[in-house]
């Protein structure tokens, strides 16, 4: 039973991941991600002349902010628009299986894109003395942060059948979740709320991990965030046809 459960998720995961590469989305996405990321980084890299990826991980959350909703926008919206949702949800699968498959395929795709950016740390290691701790932390943090964006975006995609709306709302929601703990937002907020907002914001936890400080508190935070939105997603899918 357990084995079958995972096997079905894997079959669906494979199909979802393949569908990125069957369409131009994957190539446009990876292309834009690499060009923008590398350009922004190497633009200032030679001026600073430091073998560190700190700058890269400073703007990575912003690139992800725009690109993650682009990955997730179609995951439910397209199924609804094309009617395939009726096939998917009448197959003998549980809603959790479908949602886990969709989430992990999106995460796998994001990880593949990140894999291509490994040319940066490799180049840096040749150029100078690269401290591997923060690099490792940065990539780990990027996966957790990206995973959170994707879980949120996937949830939002389940609310609409229009991909553009899924993208824009996804972007807005990710932006809000990211910015809420940022210093310039906190500066204008009521004192009592500051610790809470700091904790909720996706960005602060990323900064901790990207510094190379891997604290279970941050990991638990990200996992809970991801779980919360996958769970909400299951609730939305369950309520289909209740109008």
């Amino acid at each position, binding site marked *: 039973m357990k084995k079958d459960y995972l096997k*079905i998720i894997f079959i669906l995961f494979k199909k979802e991941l393949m569908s990125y590469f*069957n369409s131009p989305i994957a190539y446009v996405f990876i292309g834009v991600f690499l060009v923008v990321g590398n350009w922004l980084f190497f633009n200032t890299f030679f001026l600073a002349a430091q073998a560190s990826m700190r700058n890269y991980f400073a703007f990575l959350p912003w690139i992800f902010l725009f690109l993650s909703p682009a990955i997730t926008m179609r995951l439910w919206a397209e199924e609804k628009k094309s*009617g395939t949702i*009726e*096939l998917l949800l*009448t197959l*003998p699968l*549980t809603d959790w299986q479908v949602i886990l498959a969709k989430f992990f395929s999106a995460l796998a795709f994001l990880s593949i894109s990140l894999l291509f950016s490994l040319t940066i740390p490799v180049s840096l290691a040749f150029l100078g003395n690269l401290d591997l701790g923060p690099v490792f932390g940065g990539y780990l943090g990027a996966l957790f942060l990206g995973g959170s964006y994707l879980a949120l975006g996937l949830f939002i995609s389940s609310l609409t059948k229009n991909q553009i709306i899924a993208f824009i709302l996804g972007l807005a929601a990710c932006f809000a979740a990211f910015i809420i703990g940022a210093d310039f937002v906190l500066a204008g907020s009521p004192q009592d709320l500051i610790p809470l907002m700091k904790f909720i914001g996706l960005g602060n936890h990323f900064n901790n991990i990207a510094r190379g400080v891997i604290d279970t508190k941050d990991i638990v935070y990200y996992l809970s965030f991801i779980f919360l939105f996958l769970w909400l997603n299951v609730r939305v899918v369950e309520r289909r*046809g209740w*109008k």
Partner: protein
Amino acid sequence: MIEIKNLTKKFGQVLVLDNISFSVAKGEILGFLGPNGAGKTTTMKIITSFWTPTSGQVLVGGLDADENSLATRKVIGYLPETVPLYEEMRVFEYLKFIAEIRGLNKQEIKDRIKQVILICGLKKVLRQPIEELSKGYRQRVGLAQAIMHEPDILILDEPTTGLDPNQIVEIRDLIKTIGREKTVIFSTHILSEVSATCDRVIIINNGKIVGQGVPAELIEKYGGLEQAFRELTK
């Protein structure tokens, strides 16, 4: 095989299905008639567990389609009105995905895909992306999807819309062949199709069953199926 008891479905205040009951025996082909918006599709969506009823019950092979939905979904093959195809996939990729996710083992996947290709006449388009297929082929791929796991029950929502007369006859023959051993429910607007294929007909209007019987009986009683349809769904 399928038993529907006092099925009611409301969307907000709108009553779509109003206390419908009927049953379909094993090996029976049931034609579902009714004007657009009568509740045919809604009934099918509830039998396939896509939607849950507001009240009432659907029993599939004795199992409740709401409580044991994973079990009942296994024995049902469903072709929705909008053919559910993943446009960017090629036909064989799609069929393979369906076979895999339906839990067939390696050997079964091979054998079954071959059979289904033969039954539905898909040999020529196997390597084509689904988005390039004609309406007729799309419908056939959809049907191939529905019969892949040799389900005991086939639910087909307007399987012949948009097809040319030759294709309609082909699909009709296919339904008849499958219906010899399996239970089939299909909805249609083409009345001649009903007398040609169905063992029994149910006509629904405004969410209620307004007439049912063997096609020959209805024809005799009302002087033709069209007359029966017009009379009962006024």
